[in-house]
Each structure stands twice: as structure tokens, then as C-alpha cells.
């Protein structure tokens, strides 16, 4: 049996999501904007999904806009905020964000906007004082990942929300990796915008949402029909939304016990590995982290070799992000945290999920130890560097 430890890339489909998809496929989809009864049924399904997704972050359903996923939501948040506050030319973010934040901001920078990127500390924490201190009257947007998908760090938001509000800037949180893994309440967090992603929760990829607080004006990014309360044109992905809703509901129900269970499994996985692999380093902070994520630097080996060798042994993990050719690049998050390129190349991410069992963790640990020994003997990373 293969063991899947890459839930931060995309979680296994939850049975609740599959059941919701099946029911909808049998019923027939329909266009929620249509007047006829098929349309009415579709609309009902969409609105129910909206309520379920809203409950994930304690928002009201009218504040949830369905999108094609986390990338669209992040792009939408940036474009929407700058469109609404068109006289302001400054965006504040961190150096460890997802590419769907970093790339649009590079684009803005090229067009003359000021982008402030706060560097993390060695454990991936962004100083809330540094963020808050950078906010001024020219700031349109503060955008920050609530939990980092590669190392698992949960950010302390401090006074960021209050400071942004008093300066008239919008505060966006990318919660794609946090939602469903830790309890979230948009009011307590104080954000105006929040990105959510379906496939990190156990629904299919291609579905996500942007929370837009009711009192918050943002410009639409996709133009066309009046769907999603005229904030996101295009016939909504009903199947994606319904599966998202079902997965969100399941995640919320399971959350209190599930967070503790995953935290214990993750801790146990690290302890088993650290006992046998001298010099193993866990990247990220000791606490204030999402409970399912381990980012480990394996001494003396290339992560790429570990990744492939583990896959051949049935253990599926990940490393950095894949390039267009399918090769892996060292993680920009680890580099920003001050790790060397070599350390980043020796690191793997193991992310557990709703269907990970204690038996799987024990077997994965055993295999990882065996594979690490073989790789470090066969292809020592230090000898390799001595040659070049």
C-alpha cells in the first residue's frame, strides 16, 4: 500500500466530498443562474455549499465568493484591493508567500508599485511589528500567509489588522493551508479578505473561495455576467463548490479532535526519525505550527534522491516546488529563512492528512530511515560538492 504524506499539495478526497459529487452528478448539474427548476436546484446546492464554506471560517455566506482556487483568490485579492484603492501604490507582504502572491507582486513592482517584503526569522515567523510598522497612508494592501504551507509556521498577527484598518489599508490573509487545520474566525483575525482552497481540505482541485468582508469594497477581476453578487463573473463551478462545501463541513466537524490527532502523529513521526537519523533538523518553530506539517533537512543527502527513492518504496512526499520540466527546485521559503542552498536541497516536506493512520506513520518512519541510510551511503551529498 502506498502512503500519501503530501496533503499540503492536495489532500486525499474525503468520502463526504465524493458523496456530494456523486449525488450532484446523478441529479444533473444545472446552471444556478437559470430561472427553470434545474437552475433553482443548482442554485440551492450552490448556496448550501456557500454556507458550509462560510462556516469554515465563521463568516457569513454573503461574504464568500467562489473562485477557481487559491491562486485565483490570491490574484483576486491583490487586483481587487488595488482596484478599489487606486490612489495607493504600496503593498506589504513577506518573503515566504505562495507563488500566487509573489508573482503578481513582482508584476506590480514592474509597473511602479512599491512592494515591501518582510523577511522571516530562522523559524519562518514574520514579525507583526515589522509588518505593522511598514503600514502607512499610501498602503493599499497587506497580504500574508496565515500558515506557511512548506514549513507550517502560523503567523502571529499582533496589531496588523488594527494598524491596517486605521491606515485605511486592506488586510488579506492567505489561509489556504490553515483552513480546516486550525480553528479560524474571520472576525477575530480581523482580515478584510481571506483566501481558501478546496483541495487542501479533501475536495478536488480547481475550486476555492475568497472571503470578502461585507463592509469591504474590492474591484472584480473577472468581468462578464453578474454571478457571485457581481464580484466574480462566469458560471460558477458548481461541482467544485459543492465538493468544497462538503469537505469544509467534514473538516470543521472533525477539527478539535483531528488537530490533536494529527499533532500527535506528526510528533511521533519526527521522534521516530530523529532517533535514527543523527543531525536531522526540523524546520519551522517548535510551536505555533499547523499540526500536520513537517519540513525536515536530512543530513548528507540530496532531497531529490530521497524523494524519488521514497516514491519507489511507496512513500509520497514533496520538496520545494516542481519546475515546468518536472524537476524540483529548492524551496524559496527555506532560502528566505536563511538556510543554505545545500540545506534547502536536502529538505523534504511531509504533510499528514485526515486519512493518515498511526500504522502508516510507523511504516513511513521505518522506510524513510532505511532509504536515508541507503542514499547517504550511495550518494553522499558532501562528496558530490567536493567534486565541483
Amino acid at each position, binding site marked *: 500500500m502506498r502512503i500519501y504524506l503530501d496533503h499540503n499539495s492536495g489532500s486525499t478526497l474525503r468520502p463526504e466530498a465524493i458523496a456530494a459529487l456523486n449525488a450532484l452528478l446523478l441529479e444533473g448539474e444545472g446552471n444556478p443562474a437559470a430561472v427553470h427548476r434545474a437552475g433553482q436546484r443548482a442554485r440551492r446546492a450552490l448556496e448550501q455549499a456557500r454556507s458550509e464554506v462560510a462556516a469554515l471560517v465563521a463568516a457569513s455566506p454573503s461574504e464568500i465568493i467562489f473562485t477557481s482556487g487559491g491562486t485565483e483568490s490570491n490574484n483576486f485579492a491583490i487586483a481587487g484591493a488595488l482596484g478599489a484603492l487606486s490612489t495607493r501604490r504600496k503593498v506589504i507582504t513577506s518573503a515566504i508567500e505562495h507563488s500566487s502572491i509573489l508573482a503578481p507582486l513582482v508584476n506590480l513592482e514592474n509597473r511602479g508599485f512599491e512592494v515591501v517584503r518582510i523577511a522571516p526569522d530562522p523559524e519562518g515567523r514574520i514579525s507583526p511589528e515589522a509588518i505593522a510598522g511598514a503600514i502607512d497612508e499610501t498602503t493599499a494592501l497587506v497580504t500574508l500567509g496565515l500558515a506557511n504551507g512548506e514549513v507550517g509556521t502560523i503567523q502571529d498577527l499582533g496589531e496588523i489588522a488594527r494598524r491596517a484598518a486605521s491606515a485605511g489599508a486592506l488586510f488579506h490573509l492567505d489561509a489556504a493551508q490553515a483552513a480546516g487545520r486550525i480553528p479560524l474566525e474571520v472576525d477575530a483575525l480581523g482580515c478584510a479578505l481571506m483566501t481558501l482552497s478546496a483541495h487542501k481540505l479533501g475536495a478536488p482541485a480547481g475550486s476555492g473561495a475568497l472571503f470578502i468582508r461585507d463592509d469591504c469594497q474590492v474591484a472584480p477581476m473577472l468581468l462578464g455576467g453578474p454571478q457571485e453578487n457581481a464580484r466574480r463573473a462566469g458560471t460558477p463551478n458548481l461541482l467544485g463548490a459543492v465538493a468544497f462545501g462538503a469537505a469544509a463541513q467534514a473538516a470543521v466537524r472533525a477539527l478539535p479532535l483531528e488537530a490533536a490527532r494529527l499533532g500527535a502523529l506528526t510528533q511521533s513521526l519526527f521522534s521516530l526519525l530523529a532517533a535514527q537519523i543523527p543531525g536531522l533538523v526540523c524546520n519551522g518553530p517548535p510551536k505555533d505550527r499547523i499540526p500536520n506539517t513537517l519540513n525536515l533537512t536530512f543530513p548528507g543527502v540530496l532531497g531529490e534522491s530521497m524523494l524519488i527513492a521514497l516514491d*519507489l518504496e511507496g512513500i509520497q512526499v514533496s520538496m520545494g516546488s516542481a519546475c515546468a520540466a518536472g*524537476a524540483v527546485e529548492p524551496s524559496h521559503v527555506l532560502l528566505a529563512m536563511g538556510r543554505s542552498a545545500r540545506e534547502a536541497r536536502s529538505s523534504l516536506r511531509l504533510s499528514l492528512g485526515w486519512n493518515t493512520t498511526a500504522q502508516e506513520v510507523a511504516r513511513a518512519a521505518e522506510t524513510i530511515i532505511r532509504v536515508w541510510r541507503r542514499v547517504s551511503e*550511495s*550518494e553522499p551529498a558532501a562528496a558530490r560538492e567536493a*567534486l*565541483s
Partner: protein
Amino acid sequence: MSARVLVAMSGGVDSSVAAALLREAGYEVVGVAMRLAPEPGHSAGRRATCCSHEDFEDARRVAERLDFPFYVVDLREDFAARVIGNFVSEYLAGRTPNPCVMCNREIKFDRLWRRARALGADFVATGHYAQTERDLGGRFHLLRARDGTKDQSYFLFSLTQAELARTLFPLGAITKAEVRVRARQLGLANADKPESQEICFVPDGDYAGLVERATSRDRIRPGRIVDRAGTALGAHRGVHHFTVGQRRGLGFASSEPMYVREIHGETGTVVVGRREELYCAGLLARDVSLVDASRTVGRLEVEVKTRYRQNSVPAVLALGAERRAEVRFLTRGPAATPGQACVFYRGEEVLGGGFIERALEA
């Protein structure tokens, strides 16, 4: 459990069929495409290089079709240090390197083998046209391919006993035509894909440009072009623009065709001559290795091949100290180009080879 073999796949038809044949033979095949060139090729529509995304996708499709795992591995650092670095310094020294020989020796049968072991593989396989054979005494032999027109044993002369023991060449006993037929039978999309001809990390063929980009100005060696009598015929911008036997691009007019005969990397002098002046009596080789290192040293009658696209010629080989050798052609032989591989054959068998240091006049 069957033996696991790591197959180096370029996306071309040869390595694809090699993988297919191994799978049919019962091996547990793991396909890998190596990322080697510094920048992945972005050449739209151009398919002459071995590291472009399209080539990786071709290899991936073959793996999907034949249902074995496939990965892209990043060996760019090793390739830059051990192949491109050598390519550049050889050109700057006035020699003409053979990066494919170097890539085989340094990357495919050394670096990739260590990766193979890390992945729990017992063998490395490639789509080279060459054969290996194990004799009753347990010694391995490297032989020309059955398809003489495709034979690539020239590029493999440096393989040792240990390397041959862990290397598989599934195409050694079949012809290129048969490979294409097999590819079509297997429904492989790349069955009729043209062969790559250029050096993979110089897809535009501009070697001099690559050398200049990879080096500092003070290492470029400009100088004079002279004839054998020492008469100055012109000047040039760097010895790395030349290879022995080259006729075009010499930059001066002459009543009869003139060819590059010698390149002196230290002084920058390029000596040219008429065609018949290129022929030489033999050559000195360095970095010489024998496939069977236990073979007795001494004089050997061999056939020697001094360029890939040249027939082998009869010669006498005398092995010397410090991995050097002297090769005497039985009749005056073709130009010997310093830096190129010279490979010693006896009949179908590769005895070994080395790199040409210089031609022998007499």
C-alpha cells in the same frame, strides 16, 4: 524480486525502446531524464537538443504508456563542473573536446550510477548502440554494435570492468531500423523522431560563443595564422574558434584550400596546410584506459578510430607509463585532432582508448 534498472531516457526513440526491451525482459524499470544543460531549452518547435521540456515530456509519455515510474533528475551542477568546464578549458587550450565521451564517463556511468544505487537500482541502462559480453572467466568485454552504421562504442571506451558489470545496452544486438519498428509496434509517439545531432548544451552550434560566455577575457588566446614555413597569413580572435582539419572561417584568401593543421594554445599560433599535409604517422594519447586493465602491457596490433565519423585504421599501439600511449598507423593516417578520443579496437572488440595529445609527424 526482479532486478531494478535505472534507464537514462532522453525522450528519443533509442532510449525509449531500450526501456521497453528491458521491461519485456522482466526488469523493474525506472526511467530518468537528466537535466544537464544550464538552462532548459525553450526552443519552440526545435527538437535537436536533449534537455528541452518537450523531450522530457516525450520520455514521460513513453513511461506512462509502458507503465513504469519516471522522474526528471537535476544533474546540472555536476554536468557544468565535469563536462562543460572540461569542454571550455579544452577549447581554450587549442584542443577539440568530445563532450559526449566525457558525459558518458563522468555523468552517465559515474554520477548517474551513484544515483541509481541511491534509488536501490542494480543496473544503469542507456540507449547506446554497443554490446557487452561476459566471458567464462567472468571478464566483461565491450563490443561494437551489431548495427555497424549506428555503432557508438567509440563514446564508451573508458568503461571499466566494474562499470560494464552494472551497465546494460539493450540495443546492442538490434538495428536502428528494428528499433523504429519496435517503437511503432509499441505505439510510441516518438517512433519517427529525428535524431539529435548537435551537442546538447550548444543547440545553436556556436561553440566559440559558449566558450566566451563561460570564461574570462584574459583566458582567450588570440594570435597569428601561419603556414608550415612560418609565413604569416592572417590573425585570429582566439584559438577556440578552430579545430584541426577545419577549412572554413580562416579569414584569409588562398589559391588552394587550406586546412588547420596545428593549434598552439600557449602561443595562440594556428598552423595551416594543404589537405595532404594533414596526414600524420601516428599520435600520442593521454588518459589512456583499457577495458580490461589486467591485460598485459606492451605492443598491440589494433585498429584505431580517431573520430566518431571515421573508419578505424590499422595501427600499432604501445602503452607507456602514466596512462600514455603511442599509436603508429600502418599507413599514413588521417588528421589526429588533439582532444578527440582515440579508441583501440580489435575486430569487434573495444580494447580501450584515450585522448589525442598530438599528432606524430614521422
